[in-house]
């Protein structure tokens, strides 16, 4: 069940990444490095803002910037949505 929930979150995260960064959401993988996906720091910040808005999770900014991979984002969202 947890894997199903994570996969649903991954799908949403992938759509956001695709929308903000202009990459195919289908190509986004759990172990993709967020910084490598971004062209520059503006894109990284736009991504972080988009994650906060979409998932409406109470995020400490330092937690958000500590996320390195897509897996980190999915885990964080799943933990804080409960």
């Amino acid at each position, binding site marked *: 069940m947890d894997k199903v929930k994570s996969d649903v979150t991954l799908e949403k995260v992938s759509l956001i990444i695709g929308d903000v960064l202009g990459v195919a959401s289908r190509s986004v993988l759990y172990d993709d490095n967020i910084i*490598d996906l971004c062209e*520059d*720091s*503006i894109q*990284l*910040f*736009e991504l972080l*803002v*988009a994650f906060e*808005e979409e998932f409406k999770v109470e995020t400490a*900014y*330092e937690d958000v*910037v500590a996320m390195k991979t897509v897996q980190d984002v999915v885990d964080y969202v799943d933990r804080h949505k409960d």
Partner: protein
Amino acid sequence: MLKIVTKKDISDKTLDKLLTLYELSRYDNCLCSKKEAFLLGRLAVKKVICQLLGNNYNFLDIEIRYEKKGRPYLRLFTEVNGLNLGKNRSSNVSFSIAHTRDRAVAVAEIISDGTLVGVDIEKIRSFSESTTRSFLTTREYEKYTLLSVADRGRYTTIMWCLKEAYMKATGEGLAIHPGKIEILFMRNECQRCIFLEVGKKVLAQGEWLEDKDEFVVTKVNVKFLVN
């Protein structure tokens, strides 16, 4: 000192003349899409450091490494009286590198009073409304709303670049939320500003320039104040 380089400054021979063995291994491990940016950044920073320290250094005498948290530091190859002393970490040079699209910029200064430097470069662009609201302070956003649509991209790009250069100078990067940094423009000095950060005692000044290709380059000097 500040140096801007573009793709035109890179040739087939650049790798051999520019990168030490350590840097070459980092270059090889870069994603393909990031290799050019890596080279441009290295070229810019080595040019400016050579200029700063004098022409006794060449590119292979200078090595950029990274701390665990990702902050770059400088190692210089030193030789005294013909003796090779190996590479030693240089702590008296503050430097910063930035790149975007087909160009990179670097600054370097001798640290005399604890002042550190940061730099950024971006092409003037528009930002999404949510990003703008998030990275500008309330006062900065109010100023933004008074601008014409045509001027907003320029304003937000300058503000982002200044804050980015500030965050790099402090060594914090995006660990500081840019919305917690307030920029105050100096009335009688064109294209200069000071910074206020919530909870920090710093003396920080910034300046920027725009080139004919609509790139903004910002440079910030930061000094932490001790209680």
